[in-house]
């Protein structure tokens, strides 16, 4: 039962560096001597970066006001009380008064912040229909199943925009008033409500359905607004470029927040006299209090902030860089000790031999 193999040489493997596993290789032998300079360099670089980050974060000014109404002098507590119990809460107004001793350098952004609001809840965050929001007429009539139970009204009409996210659209509104002198009249600060969403969002991702006879309302004919909405989607704003699905408030809201405490941009202050920032003086933020948050123990805040190259105020990154940089330097010193002692040991070994 012997089968003679084919001629010798046919089976001989190639004698290449690859097949014989002799490829030239860099062998990183990690030892203190190599790591030493690495740690010092990295440490110094991190500390430098950390200092920069820390100072730029410190340079950012932020003003925030909790207008949930659980406590505090403002009129919002009344609204909060009124909010309790009734499903469609009655409209309520309150205000936040504050004064700036000096210029609040621009550009100033007005945010609202919600806490304990789980926009990232799985069931909630999938409850939308991107196809519908991109203006696809068929999707307008036939919202995706993910939208359920906000897919269709009881009457059978499709909801546009469908889904829980749209239904829970934040509907408090703010206006900022400036009082130049004490006792003087309040001047409304112009709020730019257009540049608050990603450009790509409101120009590519979110599109209105093609208007019928030039009318957006007709395009939405045969659909119903979400149950919580007092008015249809095409009436969100009088500005024709900012209404319907491309309404920037709506677009911002639809970009679901990653964490239960989140801010969303409400407006930018960059027009007229306020392009350089908010001059000193007294200010009032008039709030239309609609949005119920007490049911889930959340709070509502209004925030005025400016930003730097690294975004909003957050000292964490700077501190972290500083800490890690220091740690690296420390480890570097440990390595130095190790290196010296190890070297000694080596020499001893050599001597012994």
């Amino acid at each position, binding site marked *: *039962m*012997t*089968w*003679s193999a084919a001629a010798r040489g046919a*089976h*001989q*493997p190639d004698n290449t560096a690859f*097949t014989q*596993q002799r*490829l030239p*290789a*860099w*062998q*990183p*032998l*990690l*030892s203190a001597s190599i*790591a030493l300079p690495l740690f010092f360099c*990295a440490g110094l670089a991190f500390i430098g970066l950390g200092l920069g*980050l820390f100072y730029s974060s410190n340079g950012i000014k932020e003003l925030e006001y909790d207008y949930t109404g659980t406590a505090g002098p403002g009129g919002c507590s009344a609204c909060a009380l009124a909010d309790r119990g009734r499903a469609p809460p009655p409209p309520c107004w309150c205000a936040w008064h504050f004064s700036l001793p000096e210029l609040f350098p621009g550009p100033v952004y007005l945010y609202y*912040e919600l806490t304990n609001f*789980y*926009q*990232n*809840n*799985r*069931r909630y*965050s*999938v409850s939308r229909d*991107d*196809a519908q*929001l*991109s203006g*696809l007429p068929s999707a307008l009539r036939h919202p995706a199943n993910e939208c*359920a*139970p906000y897919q269709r009204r009881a009457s059978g009409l499709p909801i546009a925009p469908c889904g829980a996210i749209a239904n829970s659209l934040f509907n408090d509104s703010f206006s900022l008033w400036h009082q130049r002198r004490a006792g003087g009249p309040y001047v409304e600060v112009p709020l730019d409500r257009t540049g608050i969403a*990603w450009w*790509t969002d409101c120009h*590519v*991702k979110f599109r209105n359905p093609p208007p019928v006879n030039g009318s957006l309302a007709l395009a939405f004919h045969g659909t119903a607004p979400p149950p919580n909405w007092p008015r249809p989607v095409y009436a969100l704003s009088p500005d024709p470029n900012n209404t319907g699905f491309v309404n920037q408030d709506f677009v*911002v809201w639809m970009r679901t*927040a*990653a*964490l*239960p*405490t*989140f*801010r*969303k*941009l409400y407006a930018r202050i960059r027009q007229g006299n306020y392009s350089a920032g908010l001059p000193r003086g007294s200010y009032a933020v008039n709030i239309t209090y609609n949005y119920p948050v007490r049911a889930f123990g959340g709070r509502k805040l209004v925030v005025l902030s400016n930003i730097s190259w*690294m975004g*909003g105020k957050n000292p964490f*990154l700077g501190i972290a*860089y500083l800490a*890690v940089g220091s740690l*690296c330097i420390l*480890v570097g010193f440990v390595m130095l000790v*190790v290196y010296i002692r*190890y070297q000694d040991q080596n020499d001893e070994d050599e001597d012994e*031999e």
Partner: protein
Amino acid sequence: MTEFLRWARYHWQRLTGGTNRDDDERPYNYSSLLACGGKTSQTPKVAGRHRVVVPHLRPFKDEYEKFSGTYVNNRIRTTKYTLLNFVPRNLFEQFHRAANLYFLFLAVLNWVPLVEAFQKEITMLPLVVVLTIIAIKDGLEDYRKYKIDKQINNLVTKVYSRKEKKYVDQCWKDVAVGDFIRLSCNEVIPADMVLLFSTDPDKICHIETSGLDGESNLKQRQVVRGYAEQDSEVDPEKFSSKIECESPNNDLSRFRGYLEHSNKERVGLSKENLLLRGCTIRNTEAVVGIVVYAGHETKAMLNNSGPRYKRSKLERRANTDVLWCVLLLFVMCLTGALGHGIWLSKYENIIFFNIPEPDGHVISPVLAGFYMFWTMIILLQLGQIYFIQSDVDFYNEKMDSTVQCRALNITEDLGQIQYLFSDKTGTLTENKMVFRRCSVAGFDYCHEENARRLDSYQEAVSEDEDSADTPSGPVSTTARPRAPSCRTVPNGPLGSKPWSPLGGSGEGASEVPRSRQAAFSSPMETDVVPDTRLLDKFSQITPQLFTPLEEPVPNPPLEILYIVDFFIALAICNTVVVSAPNQPRQKIGLSSLSGMPIKSLEEIKNLFQRLSVRRSSSPSLASGKEPTSGVPNAFVSRLSLFSRMKLASPVEEEASPTSESPQGSSGTSPCPTEVARPNGDPGLMGGQVGPCPGQPSAAPLCYEAESPDEAALVYAARAYRCTLQSRSPEQLVVDFAALGPLTFQLLHILPFDSVRKRMSVVVRHPLSNQVVVYTKGADSVIMELLSVASPDGASREKQQMIIREKTQKHLDDYARRGLRTLCIAKKVMSDTEYEEWLRNHFLAETSIDHREELLLESAMRLENKLTLLGATGIEDRLQEGVPESIEALQRAGIKIWMLTGDKQETAVNIAYACKLLEPDDKLFILNTQSKDACEMLMSTILKELREKNPASNVRTSVSEGLPQPPATQGSGLRAGLIITGKTLEFALQESLQGPFLELTACCQAVICCRATPLQKSEVVKLVRSHLRVMTLAIGDGANDVSMIQVADVGIGISGQEGMQAVMASDFAISQFKHLGKLLLVHGHWCYARLANMILYFFYKNVAYVNLLFWYQFFCGFSGTSMTDYWVLILFNLLFTSAPPVIYGVLEKDVSAETLMQLPELYKRGQKSEAYLPLTFWITLLDAFYQSLVCFFMPYYTYQGSDIDIFTFGNPLNTAALFIIILHLVIESKSLTWIHMLVIVGSILSYLVFALVFGAMCVTCNPPSNPYWIMQEHMLDPVFYLVCVLTTCVALLPRFIYRVLQGSLFPSPVLRAQHLDRLTPEERTEALKKWSRAGTTGQVTAQYADHPAAKSEKRATPGPSAAFARMPAPSRAVERRSVSVHETVLDSDFCEKKISGMPGPSKG
């Protein structure tokens, strides 16, 4: 199609066969002949079942259908799958893996609408892909097996066809039970068959069973009684008998049945009548047999236990760790479920961001948790722990030349071998006995040229290059076959070539020996270069020395006489069969010319050539027809033959293979004997002694011996031109160059047996006309039988004494060199003495009671007062590099067992030669006849070992269930255990397994001799299952197949003995020496790579999945993922898969050279150091840490900002990618440009994908939306800052650990890495330092451990201690005496055990 149908039929028959057979056979009462056999050693399948075989021919058609129609035909199928069952069966096999099953469960779960998380298709995708790839791999493997099966099935054999009234060619697969098959010499037997006819005049047939049991000597089979008397070939047409025999079983050494003639006369059948599948017909021109077992029912096939699904240790470990991960996941999910429940319970009412179920109910927390669980699981699935396995499978090592990887999924096991089981013959040795040295009359002839010649015999050289390159030139002018299946094809000019003088160059170079043709006749074995000194002495030999015998001869000629006698003894004191090399079946001198019908043109040609040679040399063909004298001789020889045949009971055969005399009976055919065919150079006839007399005659002779030693000696004698020309039962013709042809009248042969350890021939010397006894035997035995008082006066006596002493010295020297030693002695008897002995011997032979003892006594009477002639040293050549490999493997901490079918002496000899045993090892020999004795002996040895070595014993006790007996290397006492097959049987029984293993654990090396194939596999199984160690079995023959299959790793040597071992193996190598590199280098690498890779996969997945887990704390445990799921899938499938694979394939922690030089590094793998549970958990911990960092760094950075879900996920993902890849870089020990390419490629592919996907995917996959996120981030410096910081912080601990490890406490592997960087000179220096440090460390430790035991041992060396420390020269002798003692001890062990007789080791 027909093939398929037949196949289907075959399987259907296999299915239904059992019941059918029952129905058919029940009416027959069979017990009378078959059941009387008594106990069976290995219980065959079903005792009592039997089969009836009738000829598979037309007249018996009905009967045939009735009896044999359902028997399996000769087609074999070793494949696992068929086209039909491939898919289900392969799936079944694959789901042995826990991970596969688990993923299947998940995939199925996803089809349940309630828990459907992602699209069904996506979840199925990875599973399907991996299963498909593995299935393809399995399919290809199976296809290869199928092709080989087909090749075997389509071999051609001659089957009798009634239609054509002759034997026609048929494929093996078409052979059926009941077929008549005619086989020629050198053909392989296609199925088990009963021998009905042999062309051999003695009605015997020789078969070579190396394919079955590894023994390469010839075995003899006899024609069934009743047919033996017929001279004509058996005619299948007239065959009307019926054969009944036992059902197929796997017992190779047993066959029972009877043949019933039509007249109801019964003839018993035994294993002597059975030709086994896979064996080769040798030495017999043609045989005819009837098939009784075919195909899978043959004994050879039944001895192959089926293939086993092998899973590597690492895989098994990984499987359990997969379960751990599942558990971890469950914990995480439980956390999620509880968390979600708690989170929900905080709210009294339905809240608007929690969506009520369609029917208005809020989903229950548990269900929500399940959602979460489900999401996580799918992420883990996409995480592909899976890839571990597929990578193990993909993973194909580039092995060294001619190494075949046949099983791809256990490569890493090569790095963890703890026990190695090796076959001896053909694996360690070349299976070639080579005459090395001899000592005649006290002078050592060391045959330096011969040694040089042997050294130059590199295997490759002798195979590939012209033999003209070898210094000796061709001696054997045998014709070489072209194809191994038929040896009779002459490959070139036959006849004699002019014999070149000693050291002659390429003159007369004839055919290159290409393959082994007859047993023990490779040129290396047959060519012996004579020693020049001895040749000088040969030149003094003249016929005159003998003729005037009474003349006072001076002293020097006495030595010459010794030399003559010595070589005559070498030539005739054996049972070698002489045959012409081109037609080995023909026994020269008997019936080769006259008795044999001329078959073919080719043979006529050969014949003519032979005749033409003779015509020139021999004056008459028919000279000396009758032996000159010896009226009683023929009678005696026949008588002795008779006695031998009677003696040939199975037990006897096992003990001594040589008891089967190949001479056969010649009584029935008084053939014309052709004596004294003096051929060779005519010039020599004239008595002219050439300048170099040490040349054999150029006669094309071939010796077929039963044991390779005999052949080696005969060939050696031939080299001195003392050529055994022919042998018949009555006489021997020796062509002694200087003396002319000598015809010895063969008076008697006392065959070899293991009790006497010697054999003798009694001949009448043609020159002196005296009765001379030539004895050849183990040195220890012969030395005791030498004559004390010589009749030839004081001077001779003195000389004998001197010769004895000198020879003893030489013997010790030989033994030290690992040679097998034999002593040659002679004795001259007077006719009266001989006749007296003969009378007694005749009485002994004819006595019925105590015949064996009487015969032994009789032999003792003959073999005494011997005159020592000299000694020989024969080498069973070890394969190249074997001792070095074994030494290295032992240094690597591998315990090596040698399992061999050979006899004890040979095995021990080889063990010494290959350094398995060291000269000062202490040997324990287990050779008992009963279980109780075995038990006693074991406990005695154990006790002794415990005394010697208390420390190691505590640790090695098996009862504690320590999975890994520590290497006793450091403990100072090295011990070797030798156990014989019979005793092994006891030891393998349940009750003795414990002590046996305990015993073996204390021993460095274990040698099992006379082990059957099944025992071999049982030993492996025992060690494997009880000690829970990694085992490796290596072998080359079919007898090793079951062992190879049972072991964790089976290695086949693609050597001389066919391909069965290779087919069954996981790896096939060409030589034993490659094993070293395979284990030490590739094994180490594979293990290190794979262990690290598996750890890495666990790490990777845990780290990545944990990112999601941490996010659950911030999304109400609702199971949201912050990453688009395409990215999730591709993250594991694409972006981070290639680097680990490249790492797993190319990682090289230490260079091959260093690994070979420092076998100690292998121990890391044995202890599974790279993948300990601790390592696993530390890795998981690190993964946890890294995921924490990777999540919370971005979390705190983006806390309270307006970041959205998927934008938040983006830096997380990116940082995770960098962490995971750089982690690998830190762990890598070597980085090539391929690594770099793949790493850079992976990162780029991720970024490109993210950018493209972000640009293209506006509304795709609804829940998530990555649109333009990456683009936004690429412009955001914070993104970069976060990623850099996260990556650094996450990797810092591991980096620091690795740095400190490299500097403060480097592992041996790390230190070895440093060696690779040194210059060659520094390297050798460092290596020396290393090994010195290693040994001193060991020594000090060992002295510290048991100083008491040491000093005690030194102070009071007991008998066994003395034995253990005995210097090597005396050791060899001692060993032999030990074995004698032990046999004696066995017989009366029962009596002695009461008195607390210590083990034979003290003998």
